[in-house]
């Protein structure tokens, strides 16, 4: 198992940050997020906390080097390059905190990634609870967030182990499949560690990007309110187009080519 931990403070109030969390897709840093749905949402009648479960479809994050080692079909739903993420959040507006948990739903035996975040309102010295419209724009209040990501690979345990042994018996790793030979020579624990480390290094980048995305949404919220966020999203979505985000980006490059982005409602 591997862990990643990060602490960060947003210069925005808790209401703004919690709203940005629900509003964070799409943003310019979320091109890998294809769809996002609310599958369940309710208020706990006793605590008044808001519970939300969302399903996100993202471009697969399994590196191709690892994918090649896996039996067909294990790399996500029919190797489509997409993966489902289940996200649950609980918001307590009175105590000023929000807890989130995101986990991958498939290929959890290969690598299970669980990201947990706790957002906590940091009150200004005066200790006044100002949850009104103005607080969305006030800079006085800050929000701390602690992110913890846990990686656990079970690859090689159980039925996957036999495949590894078969690979080792085939010999001639140099000529046929050097990469596979390399992996076959590792112990089960070594493979697991390798995969966990790949996950870890990719997560550092992902956590940074998600922060950038949140900041963009927060800035839009501050300068234009909800309307500002929605307009920003519309622009992002137009830039993405109906073909799916990444294709459009590839086709058009990253900037300058404004003439092509003229579709008005997609």
């Amino acid at each position, binding site marked *: 198992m591997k862990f990643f931990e990060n602490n960060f403070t947003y210069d925005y109030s808790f*209401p703004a940050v*919690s*709203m940005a969390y*629900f*509003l964070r*897709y*799409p943003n310019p840093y979320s091109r890998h*997020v*294809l*769809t*996002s*749905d*609310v*599958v369940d*949402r309710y*208020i706990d009648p006793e605590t*008044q906390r*808001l519970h939300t*479960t969302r*399903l996100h*479809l993202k471009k697969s994050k399994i590196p191709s080097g690892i994918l090649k080692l896996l039996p067909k079909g294990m790399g996500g739903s029919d190797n489509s390059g997409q993966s*489902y993420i*289940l996200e649950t959040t609980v918001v307590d*507006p*009175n105590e000023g905190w929000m807890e989130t*948990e995101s*986990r991958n*739903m*498939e290929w*959890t035996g290969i690598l*299970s990634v669980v990201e947990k975040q706790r957002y906590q309102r940091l009150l200004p010295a005066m200790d006044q609870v100002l*949850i*009104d*419209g103005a607080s*969305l724009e006030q800079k006085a209040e800050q929000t701390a967030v602690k992110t913890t990501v846990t990686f*656990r690979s*079970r690859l090689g*345990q159980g039925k996957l182990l036999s495949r590894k042994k078969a690979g080792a018996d085939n010999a001639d790793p140099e000529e046929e499949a050097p990469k596979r030979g390399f992996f076959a020579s590792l112990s089960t624990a070594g493979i697991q560690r390798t995969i966990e480390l790949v996950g870890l290094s990719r997560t550092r980048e992902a956590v940074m990007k998600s922060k950038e995305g949140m900041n963009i949404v927060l800035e839009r919220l501050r300068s234009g309110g*909800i309307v500002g966020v*929605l307009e920003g*999203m519309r622009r992002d*979505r137009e830039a993405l187009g109906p073909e799916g985000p990444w294709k459009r980006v590839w086709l058009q490059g990253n900037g300058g080519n404004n003439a092509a982005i003229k579709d008005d409602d997609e």
Partner: protein
Amino acid sequence: MAASIAPECNEVKEKYDTCFLKWYSEKYLRGNTKSTDCDELFAKYKTCLQKSLKEKGLDTMLDEARKSGSETDAEFLKKS
């Protein structure tokens, strides 16, 4: 707003999302946790979504994933 996994639900999802944001920022976060402004839209959106998830065979995967959160941890500890 982010697109739905079910394109046919995009329209009702957008209506619901907009309603939710308004309710969340103007009511819920200000302490009015009892209001139910968006319940009707959410029911419509959910009906549309569930139908699509079922057609895609995702409903059972979703149920299992939602249940299994803590179970997988316990199971893992038992094995190792």
